[in-house]
Structures are given as structure tokens and as C-alpha cells.
């Protein structure tokens, strides 16, 4: 008989652990080979992994194909940037009816940014989730585009060119200027998010969500008002995307409307598919693969998209399950999409 431990240690688990370990020691490797660029790469991978994980919750597990998810990342990033702007420019954000000053304290800006993203997800979700299938895809895309234009119109905050975060961010009294500190904070957030999503998916709520992906009609017939469950998932995903957006603003110290545009949302979906839709570590593998691939191809030619496009098409058409799908474990029950 196979022992319980053997059942648990599958190629997929090993690879996922290796991935996490690699991310954890990246700063050490980076200083060993004296290449600070590696930390930036790792940071970008983790931020995208968080963002892709949030999309995974609603798309991979819940079956909601949203092409506007980047909006929730961008909104949070902008909240951080705007609050930052108001510190460096000395004027308050709002003078009436209450005074709201700018802030560069992460303890303040992070919750606010995430809350704003979650609220946006609530509003957009409330309207969009009344539609299904094709309409849903397109309405999410259109909403994100609307926000994109909205942020371009904010000339005060840079308009189309975006805006820099000039004020140094702090976590209370601790400066966040240290790249390594920020890196490990991001890693901690990524791990927490993965655990959080895993718990949600396994819970009663998660079962309903997965049911919605498989057969929504059946779920309604059995007594679940599916709209409510999908909306809650949508808001949670928006909040997590907000966390990613906060990290993005803090690490890049720059935001621009392009962060919200629909090609960005498309990239998230691509990462998710590359890594493996509906699997816990798929988003991590997918974003790592995408970022690294982009860097490699980019070093060969600036026109890397000419190669990537057809390769990706081939991948979607003929390779099922993404990277995670290549490493099946005994308790992997993913039925291929068709």
C-alpha cells in the first residue's frame, strides 16, 4: 500500500516547493552574482502571481471569464500613487466635507487601496454578473476600458503618461526603501494569498463556486442563488488584485493608465492558462514562465510578440492543462477544458 506521505509528495508538490524556495533565496542569489536586476524580476513575478491568483479564483475555480481584471490592480495602484502625490504636493485630497490628507504610510494606504478595489469590484460585479458567457466577457472588458480612459483624463495625476511616486513609502516608522525588505514582504503576501485561496476553494463556499463553473443551472435548481456567491467571489478577487496593485505601485514607484488597459487583463489570462487554470500553483508558474519568457525573447528581438503569439496559440489549441498539467499528481482531478 502506498503510505500517506508518499501519496502527498507528488511531482507537482515538489515543483511548487522548489518554486517557492527559488523565490525565497532569490535575493541571496542576486547579491551572489551581483545582479540586482534579478530582485526586480522576482518582484515582478510575485506581483503578477498574486494578481493571476486572484483571477484564478473567479476564472479558474468560478468559471467567470473576466477580461477586465487588470482594472482592480490599476485602481489600487492609483490610490497609492494619488495619496502619495498629495503628500509630495502638500495639498489635501479632499477639503470638504472632511479633510483627507495624502499619506505615504503603507499601514494607511494599503487598506484604503484594497478597499477601493474591492468596492469597485462590488459595483462592476453587481452590474456585470447579471450577464453570462459572452456578454460577461465583453462587459468586463468594457468596464476596465472605461476606467482606463477615466484615469487618462486625470491630468492632475499625469494623465496618459502616468505619475511617479516621489514620496518614500513607510510601514509605520520603517522605511520601505529597502528592496530586500519589500521583496520579503511581497513573498509573505504571496504565501498568505495562496493559503487563503486554498482554504476558500476547499470550503463550502468554494464548492458552490466550483459548482457554478461546472453547471450553474444545476446549482440554481438545487437551491443556490448563484449570483450572490459569484459576486462575493468577484469582490474577494478584486481585493486580492488590489493587494497586487498596491505592491506594484510601491515597488515600481510609478503608475500609468496602461496598467488598466485590456491587453493587461489579457496578459493575466494568458499567464493563468500557461500555468494551469484552476490549480493553486498555476498562477505562480504561469507568471514566472511569462516574465522569464518575455525577458528571454526580448533579448533576442524586440519583436518577441511575433514569436510568442503563434506559440501561445499552438499552446492553447493543443496543450491541455498548462504547466501544472504536465505534472499530474494522484489527487489531481482536473478534467480538461473543451
Amino acid at each position: 500500500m502506498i503510505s500517506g506521505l508518499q501519496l502527498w509528495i507528488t511531482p507537482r508538490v515538489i515543483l511548487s516547493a522548489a518554486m517557492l524556495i527559488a523565490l525565497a533565496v532569490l535575493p541571496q542569489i542576486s547579491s551572489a552574482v551581483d545582479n540586482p536586476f534579478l530582485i526586480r524580476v522576482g518582484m515582478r513575478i510575485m506581483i503578477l502571481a498574486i494578481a493571476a491568483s486572484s483571477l484564478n479564483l473567479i476564472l479558474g475555480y468560478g468559471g467567470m471569464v473576466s477580461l477586465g481584471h487588470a482594472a482592480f490592480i490599476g485602481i489600487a495602484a492609483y490610490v497609492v500613487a494619488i495619496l502619495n502625490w498629495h503628500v509630495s504636493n502638500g495639498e489635501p485630497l479632499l477639503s470638504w466635507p472632511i479633510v483627507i490628507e495624502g499619506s505615504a504610510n503603507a499601514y494607511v494606504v494599503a487598506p484604503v487601496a484594497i478597499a477601493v478595489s474591492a468596492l469597485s469590484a462590488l459595483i462592476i460585479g453587481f452590474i456585470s454578473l447579471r450577464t453570462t458567457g459572452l456578454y460577461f466577457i465583453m462587459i468586463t472588458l468594457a468596464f476596465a476600458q472605461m476606467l482606463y480612459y477615466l484615469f487618462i483624463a486625470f491630468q492632475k495625476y499625469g494623465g496618459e503618461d502616468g505619475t511617479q511616486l516621489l514620496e518614500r513609502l513607510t510601514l509605520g516608522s520603517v522605511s520601505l526603501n529597502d528592496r530586500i525588505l519589500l521583496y520579503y514582504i511581497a513573498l509573505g503576501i504571496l504565501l498568505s494569498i495562496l493559503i487563503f485561496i486554498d482554504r476558500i476553494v476547499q470550503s463550502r463556499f468554494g464548492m458552490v463556486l466550483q459548482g457554478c463553473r461546472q453547471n450553474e443551472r444545476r446549482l440554481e435548481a438545487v437551491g443556490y442563488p448563484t449570483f450572490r456567491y459569484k459576486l462575493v467571489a468577484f469582490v474577494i478577487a478584486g481585493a486580492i488584485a488590489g493587494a497586487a496593485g498596491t505592491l506594484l505601485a510601491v515597488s515600481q514607484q510609478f503608475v500609468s493608465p496602461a496598467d488598466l488597459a485590456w491587453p493587461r487583463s489579457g496578459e493575466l489570462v494568458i499567464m493563468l492558462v500557461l500555468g494551469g487554470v484552476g490549480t493553486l500553483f498555476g498562477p505562480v508558474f504561469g507568471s514566472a514562465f511569462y516574465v522569464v519568457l518575455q525577458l528571454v525573447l526580448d533579448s533576442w528581438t524586440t519583436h518577441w510578440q511575433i514569436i510568442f503569439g503563434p506559440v501561445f496559440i499552438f499552446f492553447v489549441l493543443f496543450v491541455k492543462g498548462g504547466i501544472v498539467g504536465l505534472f499530474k499528481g494522484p489527487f489531481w482531478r482536473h478534467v480538461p477544458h473543451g
Partner: protein
Amino acid sequence: MSPLLFVEQSLNGLQFGVMLFMMAAGMTLMLGIMNLVNLAYGSLYMLGAYFAVTIQWWSGSFLLAAAGSLLATAAVGVLMEMSTFRHLYVRSYLDQVLCTIGLNMFLNELVRVIWGSRPLNMKLPSALAGTVALLPGLSYPILRLAIIAVGVVIAAALYALIAHTKVGIHIRAGASNRPMAAVMGINIKALFTFIFALGAALAGLAGIMAGPLLSVGINMGDSILVLTLVVIVIGGIGSVRGALIAAILVGFIDTWARMLLPSALGDTGIYLLMAGVLYLKPRGLFPETT
């Protein structure tokens, strides 16, 4: 605001709506009949503009450029259909979204390689370059009037095609019941290829019309794509009539919103319209029920 300004802006709105209709009609046919999400559709629009600019540069003739571009774009469309899209009809919407995003990436970059990153300009023949006095005090560009005229002709032609020809019957049959249509002996493969070519030509036509008005650049397809999707969603997927009404509506609302509201709200006007419509009618104004 003067009534003349209002008339001028309304005509602009109509002209914009007509261009949107070109795109929307093609896309809604593809969606409604072939169940195909094509996010690379904007690139056909872009190719239409680029082909026109190039042919005009070689030949010096605007007419030749327009005709040549239409043919070339339709040909590219057929090529796309036969190589990639054939495999996509049976796949999930997600797979279609992904593949067409990949295709869009590829085409955008290909255009950049062939034509370079700088925007190009299309020259107008003198016949279209001037203005005409529509009302005392109102001079309106002939080009825009021509676009409106072309749009009306195309709308009429599409109506005639769908309502009064054999192909139109096939289209309607294919839209409502594909297995039935196949049993009735309609060649679904040929029909789909035809619709794709038609859609590509319409997108190319819109691109040709856009060329002289906006500059021809990479990513011009991405922005028109979203607008097209908004129009289709408002009009109802699969309905050409819905696409026409929604396109005109969007054209007007967008132009008026920009004129009347501060810039931030002006851009978002049509999205608010879409949100409102979908809240009341989640399947658009004229959904083609299946």
C-alpha cells in the same frame, strides 16, 4: 450652444456611428452565427488602413487604394479563417479569447516590423478633401459626408443580403439552428468562410474610412475593438439591426458627451450607457434568441 454646432456635432456622431456599424455588423455576424469571439478583429481594421495607405503611396490613386485594400483585407480574413479560426469554432469562449489575443499580438507586431512604429498619413483626393456648405454658416467636410453615404449604402446592402437573398436565408438559418441548417444541405463551411470574408471586408472598409480622419498607427485596432464590443453588447449579439441602432446611438452619445461634459466624463459616456442598458436588458436591446 448654437444650433449649427449642434447639427455639426450630430453629423459627426452619425458618421462615427456609421463607422462603428461597419465593425459591429461584421463582428456580430461572426459572434451570432459562428459563435466566435474574435479579439483580433481590430487588427483587420488596422490592416485595412495600412493596406490603403500603402497602395495609395504606390499608385497615387485613392480609389485603387480603397478597392485594393478591401480585397487584400478580405483575403487576409479568409487566410486567418482557414488557418486558425477553423479550429476555434468548437472551442470554449475562453480558448477563443486566448487564441485571438495571441493572434492580435502577432499581427500588431508584424505590422510594426513591416511598416515601422511611426504613424502614417493618408492623402485625400481633391474630390473628397474640401467642405461643402450644408446650411448657411455650416461648412461640413465632404469626406465625412461620403462616409455617411457609404455607411447608408452598406447598411441597405446588408439588409438586402440578409432579408432577400438565398445567402441571407442561409445566414439566418445558420444563426438559429446550425444542425438543422446542415441537414438542410447548407454548406456550413462555405457559409462561415463567406461570413468571415464579409466581416474582414467590413472591418477593412472601416479602416479605410478611418485612415484619413485619424492617423494610421499600430494599436489603432485595440481601441476600436472595445468600442465595437460595446456596440454589439448594447445592440444584442447576433443582431445586425441591433448593431445598426446601437452604433448610431453610441456614435451620437459619444460625440455629444464629449461636447457637453468635462473631458473625464465625456470619454466614459458610452460605457455608462452600456452599463445602463445591460442593467435593464442583460442581453442587449435586440437579442437574437436561440
